[in-house]
């Protein structure tokens, strides 16, 4: 195979491109199902089997069960779809999610946002 020029990357900013979309299709399809409350409840009753129903692979299922946000992105999760999981299913807000991904406490994360506005 003819080598391709390296993809442009932006540090800390994962891009949802074709590579992510291909990897994460079934994971995103599962999260899209969380538009519906009945589905969110179903998931919470038996998470592993809900993941299996949608055909997630092992690393995607593990990332879901472990609430591992950075891994969920790495295995192809798109942010709008993961947001339905985080918010609708797990009851987390974007500062919880931000703290999880940056290694800060939630208070530190919020304080940094406020500082950005000065």
């Amino acid at each position, binding site marked *: 195979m003819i080598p391709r020029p390296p993809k442009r990357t932006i540090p800390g900013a994962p891009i949802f*491109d074709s590579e992510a979309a291909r990897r994460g299709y079934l994971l995103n399809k599962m999260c899209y199902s969380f538009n*519906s409350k009945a589905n969110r409840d179903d998931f919470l009753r038996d998470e592993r089997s809900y993941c299996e129903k949608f055909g997630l692979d092992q690393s995607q299922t593990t990332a879901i069960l472990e609430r591992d946000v*950075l891994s969920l992105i790495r295995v192809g999760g798109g942010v709008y779809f993961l*947001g339905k999981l985080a918010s609708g299913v797990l009851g987390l807000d974007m*500062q919880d999610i931000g703290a999880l991904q*940056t290694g800060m406490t939630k208070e530190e994360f919020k304080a940094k946002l406020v500082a950005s506005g000065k």
Partner: protein
Amino acid sequence: MAKVVGIMTTSHVPLIGKAIHLGLQQDPYWKPFFDGFPPIREWLEKVKPDVVLACYNDHGLNFFLDKQPTFAIGTAATYTSEDEGWGIPTMPEFPGAEDLSWHVRDSLVRDDFDMVTCQEMSVDHAFTIPMALLWPDQKWPVKVVPVCVNTVIFPLPSARRCYKLGEAIGRAIANFPEDTKILVIGTGGLSHQLEGERAGFINKEFDLQFMDSMVTDPQWATQFSDLDLVEQTGNEGVELLNWLVARGTIPGPVRVVHSNLHIPISNTAAATMLLEPV
């Protein structure tokens, strides 16, 4: 003939929907954002637009990756607000401006914009929250035309393409043979990032530059690629593409009726502008 009487741009953070539902508008956290709206509502009372044409991005409610549009336009008689998993209560349905929607759709296709036509459509928080900010009683006194821009999958339509879409919408409006007063809204942004190690990223300097460009140099941002915009404004800051579509609908200069930037609302640099044609 129809006329764009103003352009309103605003952030559409889901948390705003919760704040409205819980009546938190006067809380210290929320007040600097919500205080931006009374002047806009006075303007609405004075100008009384007939139609809102809203440029926004669907976040996985009406569309999924099985059939992901680049640009879509609604032509329905009504639009519904649905559960999106963000905990925002739904809103009353919106009446569609059908004649105008079809006219714009047809004109855009003839202008070589490859639109998705939606005769049945749900509208997500990016559409509904701005409407609730403009009309808090949620008794919509306007008909609507929803126009969606893809910000789900990269590459996105370019900033230049988005501006041109706006111009084409403006041409369509200019030759709609009714004296309809149209408020164009563009929603989303400004700088923010939800995912990745750079979650929480904000770029106030770029936001101020961009807001200024909406008045002084509207095509300024069209120099940036989608990845340039991610770098400058964060992964979700790319929603400024919706602002560019909106701005494109007025070909000439505009004056600022109102402008507000408050950081942060949730992870977002929450910005609001109201512009009128000069």
